[in-house]
């Protein structure tokens, strides 16, 4: 039986506040960019985070993942065990955004520092 | 200031110029006009030299009439 995917996804209040601040500080063009970056960071770290507490809906799936590339990445790297790929995306994003805020703490996001060094 | 040295040179220049323009005035008269200028050379007021020149010319004409 295929699981139903949500059409809207979001963040915890905490992560949402942090993401808004990053946008306000002009470290991001759009909040969606930070959302995706958070997902990427969590995937890169191999994190499989817990469910998002007190979720606040923020984005449509179509906004975040118009070409289903995120879904493909999550499926490739995480065994969903039949679970929803976009609920997983939510959990990854929540963890990732908080992690970004911790790492850069009010400074511009240094993407170069996040990308793993090539051999 | 002009010195005897200059006097020679300026006077020599006057004599030569006199020849150039084929002047009819006597050399002594020209020398006398120059002596007036030398006397008054640093006088700011030029009326003194002009006055002396007018008198010289009058005398010269008077001499000519007498002859």
């Amino acid at each position: 039986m295929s699981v139903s995917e949500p059409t809207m996804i979001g963040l915890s209040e905490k992560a949402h506040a942090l993401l808004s601040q990053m946008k306000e500080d002009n470290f991001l063009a759009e909040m969606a960019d930070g959302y995706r970056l958070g997902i990427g960071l969590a995937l890169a770290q191999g994190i499989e985070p817990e469910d998002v507490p007190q979720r606040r809906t923020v984005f449509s799936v179509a906004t975040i993942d118009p070409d289903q590339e995120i879904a493909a990445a999550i499926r490739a790297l995480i065994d969903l065990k039949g679970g929803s790929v976009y609920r997983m995306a939510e959990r990854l994003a929540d963890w990732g955004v908080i992690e970004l805020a911790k790492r850069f703490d009010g400074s511009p996001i240094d993407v170069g520092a996040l990308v793993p060094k090539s051999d | 200031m002009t010195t005897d040295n200059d006097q020679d040179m300026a006077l020599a220049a006057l004599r030569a110029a006199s020849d150039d323009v084929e002047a009819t005035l006597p050399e002594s008269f020209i020398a006398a006009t120059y002596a007036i200028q030398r006397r008054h050379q640093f006088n700011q007021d030029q009326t003194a030299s002009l006055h002396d020149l007018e008198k010289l010319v009058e005398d010269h004409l008077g001499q000519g009439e007498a002859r």
Partner: protein
Amino acid sequence: MKLLKLTTFNFMPYKGTMSLSFPTSSEQNVMLVYGDNMRGKTSLLNALRWAFYGKALGRHSRELPLQDLINKEATLEGDWSMETCITFEDSGHTYEYRRRATKHALVSKPSRPEDFEVSRGLLRDGIAINGYMIDSEISRFAPEQTSRFFLFDGELLQEYESLLIDGSEQGRKIKEAIEQALGVPTLIRGREDAQTLLKSAQKQQTRDLDKISGMERHVDRQRALQSEIETVERDIEDQETQLKTIRTDKTVLDDFIEATEKIHAAKERLTTNQESLATNAQTQKDLEIQRLGLMRDAWKDLIRPQIALKREHLTEENNQLAEAMIRKANISGQIEQLKKSLSSAICHACGQTLHQSQRELAGAELGRLEAEYLGIAVDENARNRVSAEIRDLDRLLKPGPTAQIKFLDKELSKLKVEQTKLDNEIERLHDQIKGQDTAEIARKRTLRDGLIKIEGATEQSIRASRAKLDKNNKELQMIAKALEGIPTARAAKSTQIVKIAGELERIYGRSIDRLRDDLKTRVEQFASDAFKALTTQSKYSGLKINNNYGLAILDERGHEVTIRSAGAEQIVALSLIDGLARAGRSAGPVVMDTPFGRLDPGHRANILKYLPTTTNQLILFVHEGEVARGHDLAQISSRIDSVYEIKEVSTRHSKIEKVTT
């Protein structure tokens, strides 16, 4: 003339009384005064200038106001009196010339020359000379017009370079001074007097001829010309007054512009830097926008290694699936062959009949193959799934924006560094121009440029008026010539005066050019002789003079040397001074303030040897760097009468002490 003693009271840095005695012997005719910069050397020159002419000069020969000449320390103590006394001898007479300035009783703190009372007195052999005769008496020994060659400011040597530039304002002034020194003005004044006499005689002639019938045509024309000449002369006078005003205003503006040049330059740099800063800010903004735009897909670069590894695994899986399919297909083929062989009892490979044992073997092989075939699981869906996953991952593996973001980060970093530099420079420039009215500076620069144009137009106008004047005068001459031929006209006294004055005017006019040419030739010769004695370069053959008394150096082939060092310029200028001295001035004293500034030891030695031979008294104000007491003076020690030194008592007070005799 010989200077004997200079005494001053409260003059410039010399608070109280200061005295200098000058050398009087013809063999030992050199006096040196040593002083560091800003201690009072130039003030000594000014003391002599003020003593003789009541003037002291500052930069660019601008007159210093009287209130600035009195010693500052004395004025702080309430003493506003100042005095100079110069004693000198000439033609067997001894003179004492005293000049004194005191503030008016009702003025508490003078701030302008008018706040002072200036008095002077000249004694000749102890007998006072009448006040109105003092100037003409002084002019006999040291006329002010030629004072620049007797009281010589070495820093003005550079001015002489402008003589080489035709049409320079500076050159024009110096040329006038030189011609004054050489007596040309005497002839010029002679011509002016002849012209004045001629004009008044012509007017009288017109009035006289008016009374003689038949002269109407000449009279009318003469009258008309005289009237026109008077009008043009008035115009020329007005224009010359205007020109003088323009030149004075221009000089004031030039001084202001020179003084504010740094401010103006700073303002220009400030504007440029502000523009650069604005461009920098805009570029940063643009790059930041670009950078933010790239963040959209940056998440892919974070997971690139994992995705690449996953793809590797999937590719391996895909290959395995493909191998299984191929193997199964092969086995299927083999099974078919064996089945055919068993049912036909003929070997499919060689076409021979199969024996019983061979049939048994084939049957066993068939069974084995069938078992193997059944053991191979081919999952078509899995293969499709894997291929699709690989395709998805290939999309994710396309190059991401991180390299570009890194490049933009570097560029932004550079721009920020540049921005900081610009900010600091802008702040520094703001400090530099703080309090300055840069708008006023710009206004004065524009005004000065405007004055240059007006000056040119006025000069042009004057030239045109003079040409017109000349034309009219020539026509008057023609009429005068015609009148001389007419017996009735010739008889009139005024006509005779016109003839005499006209001839005098032509003679003097012509003589001016002759004298100028003769003098230039003599100055050139004397200056060349001086130059050959002063220069250390044996290949130079002499000097050549131009119309402005500028001198060009000639090499051994007689060609002009175009590139000259600052030292060479100084030697040339000194040669000119000496040439002028021999051509025109009387051999009086020469007082020189820092004449050796740009000279090397070789040239200095030549000058020190040569100058004392050209004058009866040589007084030099120098600093140790110019003339080394030990080495340089040794060469002329036999000619030195005395050496003085200026010592600093405080920043506003210097004193002079005699060092050796």
